[in-house]
């Protein structure tokens, strides 16, 4: 059974005078272990689609089954519980709580869980999630003491901590330089190899090439849905970048 089933999704924003038809009949299925990039120009409906996937918004019409659950029948609080248990969010701007340690940031979704364990239990789970993204030694740091890549990895750890069905990332590399972007994509690839389903929005082609599947949208419709043939692998790309950097330094010294 697919984790995500979208059937003929429409979304119309009605701001009184103007009606904006942001998504016009999208049907997509996503299976466990997939790693999909959603691409498109601004206004193509990709953000609306992500909000729908993230259960932050309900479609105007169409059916969305998340892990077999029809979300159109859920109220605001039930959607919140669903987001808490089945989804993980990674944002472009990291969206970590300021002046709050990495560990406490990662603990956040557990605080709102229906089955929250003891404080020690939460702490251990948060530490494990930080270890997964390679930041076990930064648990006590504040976001302001971390680099952009590290902050995004804390955000990924936060998204992972409740063991979600799907990880949703909205331009996760948008605020990062190319080397850090590759580093973060490496984390995503590693998580995907461990079996986590990931959907990310990006407008950078070379970032999309790290994913397994690319979905391109235009004017609220899917115009292309292809498997990536020659996929980039983060560890190899990183070596290329380092080599290029070394070359640049050699030239600089001459």
């Amino acid at each position, binding site marked *: 059974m697919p984790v995500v089933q979208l059937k003929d999704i429409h979304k119309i924003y009605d701001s009184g005078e103007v009606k904006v038809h942001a998504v016009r009949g999208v049907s997509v299925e996503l299976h466990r272990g997939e790693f999909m990039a959603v691409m498109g120009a601004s206004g193509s409906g990709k953000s609306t689609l992500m*909000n729908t996937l*993230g259960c*932050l*918004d309900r479609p105007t019409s169409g059916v969305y089954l998340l892990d077999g659950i029809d979300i159109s029948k859920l109220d*605001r*609080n039930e959607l*919140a*519980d669903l*987001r*808490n*248990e089945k989804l993980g*969010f990674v*944002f472009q701007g990291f*969206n970590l*709580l*300021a*002046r*709050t340690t990495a560990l*406490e940031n990662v603990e*956040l*979704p557990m*605080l*709102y*869980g*229906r089955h*929250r364990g003891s404080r020690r239990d939460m702490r251990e789970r948060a530490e494990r999630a930080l270890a997964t993204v390679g930041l076990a030694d930064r648990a006590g740091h504040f976001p302001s003491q971390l680099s952009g890549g590290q902050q995004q990895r804390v955000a990924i750890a*936060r998204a992972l901590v409740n063991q979600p069905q799907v990880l949703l990332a909205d331009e996760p590399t948008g605020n990062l330089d190319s080397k850090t972007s590759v580093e973060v994509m490496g984390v995503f690839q590693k998580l995907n190899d461990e079996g986590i389903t990931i959907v990310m929005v990006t407008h950078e082609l070379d970032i999309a090439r790290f994913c397994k599947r690319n979905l391109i949208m235009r004017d609220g419709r899917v115009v292309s849905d292809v498997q990536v043939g020659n996929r980039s692998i983060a560890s190899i790309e990183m070596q290329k970048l380092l080599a290029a950097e070394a070359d640049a330094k050699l030239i600089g010294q001459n």
Partner: protein
Amino acid sequence: MRFGSTIIVALRALRRNKLRSILTALGIIIGVGAVIAMVSIGNGAKSQVEAQVASLGQNVVTVFSGSFTGGGMRGGWGSAPSLTVDDANAIAANVPNILGVSPEVRDRNQILANGLNWNTQVIGESPDYPQIRSWKIATGSVFTEQDVRSVAKVAVIGKTVADQLFPEQEAVGQTIRIRNIPFKVVGQLEPKGFNLFGQDQDDIVIVPYTSHMKRLSRRTNINSIMIQAASPEVIDRVQQEITDLLTQRRNGKEPDFTVRNQVELAQTATATTRTMTIFLGITAGISLIVGGIGIMNIMMVSVTERTREIGIRLAVGAHGRDVLLQFLIEAIVLSSMGGVLGIVVGVASSEAVKYFLGWPVLVSSFWAFASFAVSAAVGMFFGFYPARQAAQLDPIDALRYE
């Protein structure tokens, strides 16, 4: 269900902004501190006045003679020669629930003793008088019923008179001369200080009323009668029975006397300080409300400033109710923290007023508790609106908020 988590979340949020938290609570700290300090000072003043009223005696009912009218001129209360020792004896014999009766005669005289002289008030009383006035004898004793019957030349003197006539000497046992008649000093009263009207109560000589009437003032009538009721509960009934008895003794003539009790006097005296306490309390209460508005203001700013934070919380699964509770708890924690610190500030400043200005203060635990409860309620009341605003945010809009 998630109440515990929400408390953790709220406390973490407050800890993140220590300075702002303290500044926000400052309004409440000052408000509660002011309430406690003001009420303490007001209560202190009130208890001082009450102590002065109590110094007039316990449960005292006083009968004054009526006003004298002659040749179209009307004197005030006490000017008519209408009260007699018989009236006092009738009261003692017929009115129940009384502990003591003292007919009183007053005039001023020049006293001579020890080569010195001093002008003072000389009053004639019964031996019940010191007890009626709750006035203890420092040395010696009060004169007796026997002294009253035998029109004895004995006197009890106040501290001021003793100091003026017998400096550095024991007064008891000495002789003083009033109108050239020698009186033996048998007792000296403990100092009582100034009364409500600023008169020195210790500037006095007390002799048996018979001695005063027959040897000094040569009068047949008395100025007033002091009666001590058995308890505060019976004081009104005693007053009424005295009025009835004296009216009956006048055989239907116009009443030429007036009966007052001490409670009336106490009420008049404490009314001013009570008014002062109320006004101080109101002023301080207003500052408490201003403190509450301060909390609301900061919470509103806080909600706007933390819109993205709220968005993140909603995105990762917080219900609107969790966010509402978080901001409400933040407000209540701030205001109750302010309340506790305010109590400390209030008690400390009351003590400072007592220490530096010497004013009497009376810290009331009732008011400390009440102002703490009010400050917590203020936090809840003024925190609710911002908290509801936060809870109703849409997660998508909140996440996009710049």
